[in-house]
């Protein structure tokens, strides 16, 4: 298994279309890295350059200490599994998995040993004799994965491997993918446009948007310290809410409502030059807002529940803030506390959930730990 490093990598297509712009990041040996972003953001081009299917316009890609820019996909020894990765229809599962080994000229007993061990890791032992046409989606995907992994690749690249799979099995397939990674101690790069999926499986996230690297970090870092407003909105569903406010002091931000000014304390350091600025964006995640049905001691904003959407264990409330130009804010509450539409509620933002942005740029520094 290898460490993968991209250094100032560019991809430009004819007509000066920049698909990847000066992107640098590393994936450690044994790490599970998700590359996340909206479609057209540069994910696929990046992936294809790592695999060797796409020429690098500028910059370097390293596997450990080896520069791989000029190596063919075969020489890089990477495993690539797509969701739609076609299996050989005339070969049974065993033969599909054995194919890359036979192509390398391995002996019959070697092939047998390797196929059986990967089949066991992926729980495919019972279906080795079946033909691809007789398999469920989940099985087919695992066979494709087995065939990719059986070569003991330096890196496994999974490109949207489950985005069209039946929802019933997705949670289990994610668990399996993570398990396989942990068991084989492989280096895995997982590409998806689905933020929930990216978060579910990875150690760290790389977020690409408009050809540029937006942030690389652990799930914790991306969730709690988004590098910019795009990341703050893109990760999380429903997305982060934004309300305009004024920085009153290095510890307080205020929101001016028809009912008066509400002061909210926040945690972390802010550049003192911002004190006195209004037009600061206050970001709060719907999952972290505290909702009360009576006004408490803490600073809060009043609103009324416009729409309540039951989701099972949770409910998503759309709260209309009458004192704030009828703007709307989303709050996620446990389903038992959903209440009814039309109810008056108070929203509290505790110091640690407040994010502040000047335009796109976050302006709070938080101490780690």
């Amino acid at each position, binding site marked *: 298994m290898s460490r993968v490093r991209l250094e100032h990598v560019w991809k430009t297509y004819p007509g000066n279309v920049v698909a990847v712009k000066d992107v640098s990041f590393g994936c450690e040996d044994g790490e599970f890295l998700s590359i996340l972003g909206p479609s057209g953001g540069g994910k696929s081009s990046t992936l294809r350059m790592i695999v060797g299917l796409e020429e690098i316009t500028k910059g370097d890609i390293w596997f450990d200490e080896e520069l791989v820019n000029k190596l063919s996909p075969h020489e890089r020894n990477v495993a690539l599994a797509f969701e739609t990765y076609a299996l050989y229809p005339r070969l049974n599962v065993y033969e599909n998995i054995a194919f890359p080994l036979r192509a390398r000229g391995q002996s019959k007993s070697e092939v047998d040993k390797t196929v059986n061990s990967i089949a066991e890791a992926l729980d495919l032992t019972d279906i080795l004799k079946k033909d691809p046409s007789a398999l469920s989606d989940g099985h087919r995907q695992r066979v494709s994965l087995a065939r990719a992994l059986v070569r003991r690749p330096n890196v496994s690249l999974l490109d949207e491997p489950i985005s069209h799979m039946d929802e019933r099995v997705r949670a289990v*397939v994610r668990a399996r993918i993570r398990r396989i990674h942990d068991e084989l101690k492989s280096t895995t790069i997982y590409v998806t446009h689905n933020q*929930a999926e990216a978060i579910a499986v990875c150690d760290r996230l790389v977020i690409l948007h408009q050809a540029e690297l937006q942030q690389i970090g652990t799930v914790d870092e991306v969730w709690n310290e988004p590098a910019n407003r795009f990341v703050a909105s893109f990760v*999380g569903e429903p997305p982060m809410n934004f309300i305009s406010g004024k920085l009153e002091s290095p510890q307080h931000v205020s929101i001016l409502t028809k009912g008066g000014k509400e002061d909210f304390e926040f945690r972390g350091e802010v550049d003192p030059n911002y004190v006195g600025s209004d037009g600061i964006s206050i970001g709060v995640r719907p999952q972290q807002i505290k909702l009360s049905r009576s006004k408490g001691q803490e600073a809060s904003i009043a609103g009324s529940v416009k729409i309540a959407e*039951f989701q*099972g264990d949770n409910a998503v409330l759309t709260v209309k803030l009458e004192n704030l130009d009828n703007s709307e804010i989303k709050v996620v509450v446990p389903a038992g506390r959903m209440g009814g539409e039309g109810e008056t509620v108070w929203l509290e933002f505790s110091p640690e959930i407040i994010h502040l942005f000047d335009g796109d740029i976050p302006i709070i520094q938080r101490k780690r730990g």
Partner: protein
Amino acid sequence: MVEVSLENVSKLYGRKVAVNDISFSCKAGEFFSIIGPTGAGKTTILKMIAGIEKVSSGEVYFNERLVNELPPQERDVSMAFESYNLYPHFSVYENIAFPLRAPKIRGSLSPEEERQKVEGMADFLGIVKLLDRRPVELSGGEKQRVSLARAMVREPQVYLLDEPIAHLDARLKFSTQTLLKELAGKLGVTIIYVTHDYREALALSDRILVLRKGEIEQIATPEELYHTPSSDFVGRFIGEPPINLIDGELVSKAKKTFFKAGDDFSIQIREDLLGSMEGAASQEDGKRMVRLGIRCNNIKVAEDRIGDNSFQLPVYAVAREAESSLITFELKEVFLQAKKEEWVNYALSDKVWLDFDQDHILFFEKTIELTKG
């Protein structure tokens, strides 16, 4: 605004039964969803209500009026199709305006009024910019919103919406779902809504009908459906991740009854649950077997022992969610998933304690096959 009732309705295509003797009624002003897997008969039901398909037997009523023989245009329904069915030679504006120009209504709206209605609906659904375009210039998601706008622009007796937001990308789907709920609330009109996505059904509906192979499996409010599914099929169809289902043996020891699935997994079942458990149990190879259902958020997970009835399992994998973790365990026949309201860092094969909240345990007869996926 009408009540829509189906009485003993069946639909056959040749000898194939698409809908088998179903009866239900959707109250006036109700948001009523029909959910089920592909091929269950959802769209067929909708088309019979619209009058696009004839019923093979049975009756369809709008209030007390039998409508079996009425053509679609006389039923005063408005329908959005999953396939959009936009008029290719019309602009988006003309497509949305089309129902307002139908013979029955023609003349009743001035051009000014028409423009107001069309633009109002387009604005609401965020497609004003598209009004001058033609369908061929639109993405699938845009076409779908145009189709929805066309269905919602006039006020019929009943709206029939077939997967109206299925093709929108995730974020747009959520926001459009909220808009649809707002619109439904404002109009207060009868809406029958077909979807395969339980999320939409739970969020939008007053009541939900679960359809399985042309038959009714359950009709209930979203809360009832989620908390007390009538079968393993319904439980499995509603919720992400789906409800945990475990097959096990009933074992009695010293006046106590245990549910046992493999060697690692045994819990004592509370006395007040024994009745419902016995009711669902069946004899297999000389053993009393039953299927237990529990949602992932009703299983407590901790590093230390939780109570008398808790047991230990090795961690198979951990997945993170917005503010919680989904922990997977491997049993002999199935995977078990439990939610913890914090981010945990369990290592592979760490043994942790699990405790089932018996207030939320359900017992089912086996009507679906379980696999490890």
